[in-house]
């Protein structure tokens, strides 16, 4: 046997350049919209300009006559075959779930809903013809705001009889993880502190950069669907489940996908309609949305009213938290739309030890575009509320906001710790992250400067914002999902194919769209199998290749999907070991596997795992009774969530004359467990931070009184540009997760979850001496200016 060079340098932890970049950076990419098929036709949608209406007639004659038009499709035409946009998570058994047809038949429940579609030779001709479809609408009164929806005066779906789809409660007293929150509040009202606040989580638009696109080719034995989706496996399953096409007849491919942030975690009307159109005309059909279609019709995020009551002792020890949410789900209960607010239930208590807790969300329907997961999904909303409240509590007690957090948080000796919400946190060290963040930030010096500016009546005031957050990643143990009535499991699948030439294919059920799985998974397998990084190819996002998978969302890919890859790799090694023992004529007990090579202990005899892969191909010399393959597959169901955490500190300058805010400094120290690739991690952290900061400062979906989206283009929905951002300083502390082999915790959403309250806390801190204790997001210069102007009359709402 030839000796294989031993690999010693570890891949895990190395800032490997991303494999996928070679293509992406040189423009040689496979976006869905790039796909051209012979005879392909194009689709354009006719969308409702009304938020709420009955469709009484559709005249398609003129459109049918238009140049290049092949077919005009209405909801009535495809009612029986089009399938349905499913809700996978009815949060209560009696949840009211309006039927969500991809193309409406006679009732429009929000602006942008699809009423008809045109199939034409080119996209431009299809769009021109779409203008010619004459739809008669009978306008109905629309309900847009979640609070207004509660009393059912105007119904989003008249046939449902109510706007409330579900009321979901978690009570620490009921489940035995804490006391009665009303008792704690009553007690605090007598002898303690009660802080009662209303916060608004404005509606956001995920605004991924790649507009959604779907190509359906119905001409093969299997119908092939390319789609810019985060969830190819879920899409295939739901197409089969709702259209009656056998699952085996559908292949879904998510080629390069340009961002998602939850926004492509959906099975969309556009996908179902493109499928129906292709089946009708029996030709490949492509649909690519415009930006303005994307902003109104891809699902939105957030949109909650939060009513919060925090009870504490006089010295600031929190005794109870009551959370009452009204969550606007939009016009339909989307894929996991009803579950998003529910996911927050375990996070309002965050890193703190509270004596009692009750969480209730009232999920309501309105005549607005549907709302579903957006980066963080439920957890940013929760973190925002509690981190804002902790600042208010510090003010009420009269101590530094860091001190009040320290007084209430779980100390590092206390892990594992079961929280008042019933989660068991396995690991964490809030003290370490906070100490490090304070140091880098120069906390004390900035407090001195803040005081000086106050004393000098400087028109530009300085504020410091804190956010000590945690989140739960790695959705999710299947039994937990089952107990929550979720429609699927939380496992993930991976397979490893050892090719005869010594190269390796890793097949993953996750479906990356910017997270760099091709690189990270290669690093993991390179270390596990001792195969060079370059020799590993990661395949994903194609149901014909990776037949089992639950895709990418909820920071689950590394924690769950990565673990499946580890387990598959370990199975490969186990299988190869049997063969190595045979080839080396040694006993398995005498073998050690180092750097890709099985060696016989104490000798220089050995065989490389790549050679064994070659041997499997010929199978000439193979142990009796052993299958001639060392390929392996693993499906992993997580035992617990993982709980990344961190401390974020933000300094904001506020011009009290104009209301303009400027970020001075932002420091975050996150504990995300073991890091596979720091380059990828930094990118995820920074990208997340900016999305969270953007919620605090710039972004909001605004509707006019008719339910038309006013912020319906990038001119009006203002994403931050590079010049709006500063150099955030990011570091890591590490307390490895104990729930997976790699000790990873998940990083995709941490920045977004933590940064929003840090920024808002900083701005409020800058103007608090003027009598301001809240400003509604986004903190536009005008809102800040108004708050300052109105400050004199603003009631603080405190009941000390």
């Amino acid at each position, binding site marked *: 046997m030839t000796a294989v060079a031993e690999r010693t340098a570890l891949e895990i932890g190395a800032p490997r350049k991303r494999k996928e970049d070679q293509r992406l950076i040189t423009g040689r990419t496979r976006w869905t919209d790039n796909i051209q098929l012979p005879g392909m036709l194009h689709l354009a949608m006719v969308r409702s300009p009304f938020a709420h209406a009955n469709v009484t007639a559709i005249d398609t004659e003129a459109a049918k006559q238009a140049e290049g038009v092949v077919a005009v499709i209405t909801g009535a035409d495809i009612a029986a075959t089009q399938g349905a946009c499913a809700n996978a998570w009815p949060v209560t058994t009696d949840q009211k779930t309006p039927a969500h047809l991809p193309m409406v038949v006679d009732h429009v429940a929000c602006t942008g809903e699809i009423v008809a579609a045109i199939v034409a030779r080119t996209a431009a001709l299809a769009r021109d013809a779409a203008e010619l479809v004459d739809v008669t609408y009978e306008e109905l009164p629309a309900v847009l705001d979640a609070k207004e929806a509660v009393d059912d005066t105007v119904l989003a779906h008249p046939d449902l009889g109510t706007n409330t789809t579900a009321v979901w409660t978690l009570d620490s007293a009921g489940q035995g993880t804490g006391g009665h929150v009303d008792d704690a509040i009553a007690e605090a009202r007598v002898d303690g502190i009660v802080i009662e606040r209303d916060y608004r989580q404005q509606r956001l638009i995920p605004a991924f950069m790649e507009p959604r696109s779907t190509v359906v080719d119905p001409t093969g034995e299997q119908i092939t669907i390319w789609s810019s989706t985060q969830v190819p496996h879920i899409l295939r399953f739901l197409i089969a489940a709702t259209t009656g096409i056998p699952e085996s007849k559908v292949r879904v491919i998510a080629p390069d996908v340009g961002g998602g942030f939850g926004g492509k975690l959906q099975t969309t009307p556009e996908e179902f309609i493109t499928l129906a159109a292709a089946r009708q005309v029996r030709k490949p059909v492509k649909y690519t949305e415009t930006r303005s279609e994307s902003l109104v019709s891809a699902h939105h995020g957030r949109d909650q009213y939060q009513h919060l009551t925090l009870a504490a002792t006089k010295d600031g020890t929190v005794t109870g938290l009551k959370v009452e949410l009204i969550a606007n789900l939009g016009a339909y209960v989307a894929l996991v739309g009803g579950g998003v607010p529910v996911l927050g239930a375990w996070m309002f208590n965050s890193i703190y030890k509270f004596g009692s807790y009750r969480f209730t969300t009232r999920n309501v329907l309105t005549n607005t575009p549907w709302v579903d997961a957006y980066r963080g999904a439920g957890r940013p909303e929760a973190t925002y509320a509690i981190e804002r409240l902790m600042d208010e509590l510090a003010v009420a007690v009269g101590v530094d906001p860091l001190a009040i957090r320290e007084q209430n948080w779980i100390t590092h000796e206390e892990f594992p710790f079961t929280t008042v919400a019933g989660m068991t946190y396995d690991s964490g060290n809030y003290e370490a992250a906070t100490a490090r963040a304070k140091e880098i930030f120069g906390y004390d010096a900035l407090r001195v400067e803040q005081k000086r500016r106050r004393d000098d009546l400087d028109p530009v005031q300085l504020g410091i914002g804190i956010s000590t957050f945690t989140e739960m990643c790695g959705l999710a143990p299947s039994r937990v999902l089952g107990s929550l009535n979720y429609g699927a499991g939380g496992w993930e699948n991976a397979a490893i194919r050892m090719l005869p030439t010594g190269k390796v294919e890793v097949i993953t059920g996750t479906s990356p769209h910017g997270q760099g799985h091709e690189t990270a998974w290669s690093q993991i397998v390179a270390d596990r199998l001792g195969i060079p990084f370059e020799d590993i190819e990661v395949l994903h996002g194609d149901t014909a290749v990776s037949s089992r998978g639950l895709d990418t969302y909820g920071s689950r890919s590394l924690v769950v999907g990565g673990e499946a890859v580890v387990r598959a790799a370990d199975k490969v090694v186990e299988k190869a070991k049997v063969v190595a023992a045979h080839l080396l004529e040694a006993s398995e007990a005498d073998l050690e596997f180092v750097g890709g090579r099985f060696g016989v202990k104490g000798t220089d005899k050995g065989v490389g795992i790549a050679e064994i892969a070659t041997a499997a191909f010929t199978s000439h010399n193979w142990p009796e009774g052993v299958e001639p393959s060392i390929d392996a597959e693993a499906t992993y169901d997580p035992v617990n969530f993982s709980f990344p955490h961190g401390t974020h500190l933000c300094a904001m300058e506020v011009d009290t*004359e104009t209301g303009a805010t400027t970020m001075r400094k932002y420091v975050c120290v996150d504990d995300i467990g073991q890091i596979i690739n720091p380059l990828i991690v930094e990118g995820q952290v920074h990208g997340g931070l900016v999305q969270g900061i953007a919620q605090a400062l710039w972004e909001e979906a605004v509707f006019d009184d008719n339910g038309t989206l006013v912020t319906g283009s990038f001119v009006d929905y203002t994403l931050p540009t590079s010049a709006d951002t500063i150099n955030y300083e990011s570091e890591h502390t590490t307390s490895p997760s104990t729930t997976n082999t790699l000790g990873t915790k998940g990083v995709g959403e941490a920045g977004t979850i933590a940064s929003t309250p840090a920024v808002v806390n900083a701005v409020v801190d800058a103007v608090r001496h003027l009598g301001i204790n809240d400003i509604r997001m986004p903190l536009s210069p005008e809102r800040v200016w108004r708050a300052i102007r109105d400050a004199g009359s603003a009631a603080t709402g405190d009941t000390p």
Partner: protein
Amino acid sequence: MLAPTITVNGSAGTLSGVDPSTTALDWLRSRGLTGAKEGCAEGECGACSIMVARPGDDGGTRWTAINACLVPAASLDGGEVVTAEGLGSPQSLHPVQHEMAVRGGSQCGYCTPGFICSMAAEYYRPDRMPVASADEHDHELDHEHGPNGFDLHSLSGNLCRCTGYRPIRDAAYALGEPDADDPFAGRCLAAPPALTSTRQEGPTGVYVRPTSLAAALDLYAAHPQAVLVAGSTDWGVEVNIRGARAPFAIGIDRLPELRTLDVGEDVIEIGAALTLSEIERRLDGRVPLLAKLFPQFASRLIRNGATIGGNLGTGSPIGDTPPALLALEAVIVLASTDGERDVPLADYFTGYRQTVKQPGELIRAIRVPLPLSGTTAFHKIAKRRFDDISSVAVGFALDVADGIVSRARIGLGGVAATPIRALATEAALEGQPWTADVARAAAAVLRQEGTPMDDHRASAAYRTATLGTALLKLHAETATPQEVGA
């Protein structure tokens, strides 16, 4: 006439059979160059950014990044275009691509080719000078410039939703100098592509680009309904978003007579077809009020295409140059086959998107009289710091001599159907001492000028208040201590 041809990544591509309404982006993509992409089709996202060879200073060529989604393909006839595919390949990355890969500048990658083109254009900027010493470059204070002289504003027209920009900025600031044998740097030394006359006909209309002003005026006289296309940053949005088509379009962006900039004894004359980037560069701070305006006008990507004539041509009440040019008492030079006439900008606007411009008349130049006032400022309220349209904008030009305001000119945008002069405020200032009290009184008058509207960008109350604050800030920043005291 030859079929229009564009040199793309070194090889010639014909436009034969391409409709004049087809954008450069769609044309490139139809040729399999899918690096540039449509993220919005209205100049906001930069996913469509490409590099084009434009005239540089001193007779050379300058790589300039523009939005391919906004310009008609026909307008690039005779030009040279470079896309991310042409800059490098996976086997041999361009230095910009290499830095982006090393720093993690790409995540989903959708925005990346656009960033690459914007960044490469800045990489080749001839006057990009590394900062001399580390001390001079304080990272804490200057987030917008790299130690290598990289100006972050060159990326302000490119949106990325994934990276948070940090890795992209790191890549930009790590770039070195082009190698001696860098072909793109070499190209800059040679003359820019020659001006060609173009005629492109298709189902929706015809696009014609004459090579002289006289020819353009003749055409315009013959087709008074023609659409003039300069940088196409306004027109491109009309085409893409509102479905506008021009039965007859005249390309005026490269007319030599519209592309001069002369600084004379008592007037500066700016050619109407100069882009805002070109004007910014060529004035080089000579008109401080305009120097303050440029960075707040759209993004560099847009300014690389947008002309000053185009900004005035639409008669839009929220254009950014009118408030500044009103304060500068600029004069518009209108040309037609009947000759030229000068119109003070204050008389140019007659109503909402209405001007004194007659059929067949185009803007040849803008004249700014000299000497300039010493105290100037430009303020614009927008939701985002850069690349955003104005809610309101105000330009100030004051002469303060011996503590007395001898002359005040104030231009306002976004408070009425047309840009206007703040005449009452000017009167409240002129002849008065430049004191805090006078500034406060004038600010109160300024708040009454015009009738700003309410919308989701800003309320009328905020718009008015901000106008006043802008004047107070100008006073606070410019007054001498004695003046502040009073």
